[in-house]
């Protein structure tokens, strides 16, 4: 008995000491892993391949660990029950002391060292070659002087509002909902909080436009006022029937927080503004199937017609960590049949939100109605991944006989391959525009500043400029997105620059006046200086200061004359053993001197075919930049919050930070007018 009691006490002492040090010792790999992730993912925990900021807090110094809670050191253990009780009591008391120590009120301490924060960049502060231009050296002195929390001024906040991107007058917005074209108006609905600049109290906001650019605000279309949507009138889609009827299906969060699908339709179909909506009295029309979690059932798609005349729609969900797409068939949108088989599923991708499913024409130049099928048609399946807050898609073949879709390339299946947009972008939704025969896609762009900033400025989030979607006939492996042509109606004066040569390590200012609202088209040619040896492993990571032989080069938008703030949008090519790779990237790491905004490097490989010049199109609109590489094969949306490069101080530059190529750039740059988005003058009709 004595031998037995001896053992647990000593092992206790050992295990306690171990656990103490394991969780409080900062050098444990466990805490290091998480200290990286917290300091660089304020809002989105997306895996990414670039640099991490160092943790903002010093490792807990040894003296901060509870010193009086250690177990008794070497300890003779008398062979008596009383001694065993005594040892247990001492142990218990030390546990209590440990707990008290951990929760005691913090005192001001004099000798805590807080490391100065550095922005997430400059893993490579020593440029390899020519030490001019956009090198780390020219800015490093500024980095060290960065103050702590930024004091935003009203002028800075006001500047951040966009001029031609859709956003409500104030408060929070998220997913685009139910986009449609009806009686001459394009309609946009959106998740909207009428009370605050953070997510909550979600309603359906509403706006209309004749041209997808000049929007007019309308009253809120739907509010949470029924038991089946009292906890949220969430995302949904419109289906327009052949006879012109509009069917709106949306997710409601019920009074028990169960996710259900509800039917709504216009109160007055003769009202082109579709101001009022009626919720079907028999709602909900769909409740979660038995094998699906009650909170894993949302965002119904637009329906498409099958060969048997029945409608189908799909709803994303998950089983374990497998993202799935449920299929329902219906004839009247009131009663449905759930198919046994999913449209598609991909393990490891987690919950699929905002699923989108539609046909694209191979070798076509127009969009297709959602019900189109036949030869020469492929289908895009897109999912917004809840786990990573990233939109992914894949192209494949849909079989209308069994309602299953298979990807052309299973290695790049939905969720594990292409992203829809490589920047800050989520919850996209497309619709068919019968007026101009286009497939058009909306995307929600969240803020990357802090919520306290959003509350102070009174608003959060914008939508992208709507984009057309076409199958890329040339590569056959992706879609191309492009801003709708109606944006050209905002173009004012233009400036052309022909064949500007930019040498390695240099920066060329482009004199175009105020540079906060721009539509830029640029083409680049490179001229190799030297041998052009092969190099491996170059992508977007490292950003614009990471110099390699054939990149980076491109444009600096919303840049200050002093280059203290700038946002590079660039190409980086490299000759690898497998041929030439080209990456298209944006680098937000020096977009703002404010330390409390999220600044990332975004981008991806972009297909470049034989004989093609490198080209990019950029829409600059204050705090949002949309960048389209190679005709829209790779698209990146960025949010930036400069503090100095604003209003008249915002400039545009060409830059070449490559070491081994001269760059020749030809550009056409338009200044864009505001879209003057304002409330619809309802009192005048």
């Amino acid at each position, binding site marked *: 008995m004595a031998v037995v009691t001896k053992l*647990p006490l000593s092992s206790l002492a050992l295990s306690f000491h171990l656990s103490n040090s394991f969780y409080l010792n900062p050098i444990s790999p466990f*805490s290091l892993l998480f200290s990286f992730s917290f300091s660089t993912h304020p809002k989105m925990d997306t895996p990414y391949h670039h640099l991490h900021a160092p943790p903002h807090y010093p490792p807990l110094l040894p003296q901060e660990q509870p010193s009086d809670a250690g177990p008794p050191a070497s300890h003779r253990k008398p062979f008596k029950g009383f001694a065993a009780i005594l040892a247990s009591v001492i142990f218990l008391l030390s546990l209590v002391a440990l707990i008290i120590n951990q929760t005691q009120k913090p005192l001001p*301490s004099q000798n805590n060292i807080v490391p100065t924060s550095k922005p997430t960049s400059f893993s490579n502060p020593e440029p390899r070659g020519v030490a001019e231009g956009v090198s780390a050296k020219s800015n490093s002195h500024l980095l060290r002087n960065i103050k702590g929390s930024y004091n935003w001024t009203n002028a800075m906040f006001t500047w951040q509002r966009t001029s031609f991107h859709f956003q409500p007058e104030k408060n929070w917005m998220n997913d685009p909902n139910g986009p449609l074209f009806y009686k001459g108006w394009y309609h946009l609905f959106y998740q909207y909080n009428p009370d605050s600049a953070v997510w909550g109290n979600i309603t359906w906001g509403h706006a209309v436009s004749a041209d997808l650019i000049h929007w007019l605000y309308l009253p809120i279309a739907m509010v949470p006022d029924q038991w089946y949507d009292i906890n949220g009138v969430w995302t949904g889609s419109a289906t327009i029937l052949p006879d012109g009827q509009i069917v709106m299906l949306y997710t409601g969060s019920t009074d028990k927080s169960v996710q259900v699908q509800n039917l709504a339709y216009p109160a007055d179909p003769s009202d082109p503004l579709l101001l009022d909506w009626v919720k079907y009295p028999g709602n909900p029309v769909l409740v979660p199937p038995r094998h699906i979690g009650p909170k894993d059932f949302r965002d119904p798609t637009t329906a498409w017609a099958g060969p048997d005349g029945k409608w189908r729609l799909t709803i994303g969900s998950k089983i374990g960590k497998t993202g799935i797409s449920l299929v329902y068939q219906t004839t009247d949108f009131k009663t449905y049949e759930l198919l046994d088989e999913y449209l598609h599923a991909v393990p490891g991708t987690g919950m699929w939100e905002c699923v989108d499913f539609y046909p694209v024409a191979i070798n076509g130049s127009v969009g297709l109605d959602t019900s189109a099928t036949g030869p020469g048609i492929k289908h895009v399946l897109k999912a917004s991944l809840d786990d990573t807050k990233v939109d992914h898609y894949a192209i494949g073949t849909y079989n209308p006989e069994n309602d299953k879709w298979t990807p052309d390339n299973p290695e790049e299946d939905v969720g594990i391959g292409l992203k829809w947009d490589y920047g800050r972008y989520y919850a996209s939704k497309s619709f068919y525009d019968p007026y101009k025969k286009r497939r058009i896609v909306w995307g929600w762009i969240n803020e990357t500043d802090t919520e306290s900033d959003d509350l102070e400025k009174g608003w959060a989030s914008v939508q992208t400029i709507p984009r057309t979607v076409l199958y890329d006939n040339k590569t056959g492996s992706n879609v191309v997105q492009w801003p709708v042509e109606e944006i050209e109606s905002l173009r004012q004066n233009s400036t052309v620059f022909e064949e500007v040569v930019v040498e390695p390590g240099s920066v060329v200012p482009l004199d175009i006046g105020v540079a906060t609202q721009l539509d830029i088209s640029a083409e680049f040619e490179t001229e190799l200086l030297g041998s052009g040896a092969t190099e491996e492993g170059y992508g977007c990571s490292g950003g614009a200061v990471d110099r390699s032989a054939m990149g980076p080069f491109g444009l600096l938008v919303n840049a200050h004359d002093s280059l203290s703030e700038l946002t590079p949008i660039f190409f980086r090519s490299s000759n690898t053993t497998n041929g030439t790779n080209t990456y298209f990237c944006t680098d937000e790491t020096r977009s703002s001197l404010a330390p409390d905004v999220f600044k990332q490097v975004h981008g991806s490989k972009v297909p470049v075919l034989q004989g093609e010049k490198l080209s990019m199109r950029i829409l600059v609109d204050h705090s949002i930049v949309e960048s389209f590489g190679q005709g829209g094969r790779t698209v990146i949306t960025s949010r930036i919050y400069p503090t100095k490069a604003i209003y008249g101080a915002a400039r545009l530059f060409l830059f070449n930070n490559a070491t081994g190529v001269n760059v020749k750039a030809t550009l056409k740059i338009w200044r864009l007018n505001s879209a003057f988005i304002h409330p619809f003058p309802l009192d005048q009709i």
Partner: protein
Amino acid sequence: MKAILFVFPFVLAVAYFPISQCQNLPLIEHTCKQTPYYGLCVTSLKSDPRSKTAGDVQAIALIMVDIIKAKAGGALQHIEKLKQKYPALRVPLSACKDRFNAIIIGDVPQAVEALTKGDPKFAVDAANDAALEADSCERGFSGKSPITQMNKLNHDISIITASIVKMML
């Protein structure tokens, strides 16, 4: 009597042993194991009587959000006192007040609504933002902060909350 003495230390040892099988542990320990600050997670939750009857991760997450709110409220009070004591630090302390206010009027309501209405990703955002606000407050002192431990505590409990909510995605 001796049997109890014999068994009890084993139970405690298992509770504190770092590399034990998670599934055999009670809900709090099992959940906290998957956060970056196990000890703080456990002690924070156990200091709240509701944790005794918490039945699932959502209930635990809601308790943590309440703790964020309480700690942020405490921070605001402390900041008011410090403004009197350190007039030279008035500017960064005012900035901190805005940050902790935002946690209380923005992050906490967003997290509660997201958790109760069933769209937890917005609660992850809110908790991560709360950590960021504490970070921002600390940075405003440029190395001479009188509230580093308090900011770290607020930061860490927010991170714990974010990682707990992520389990619900």
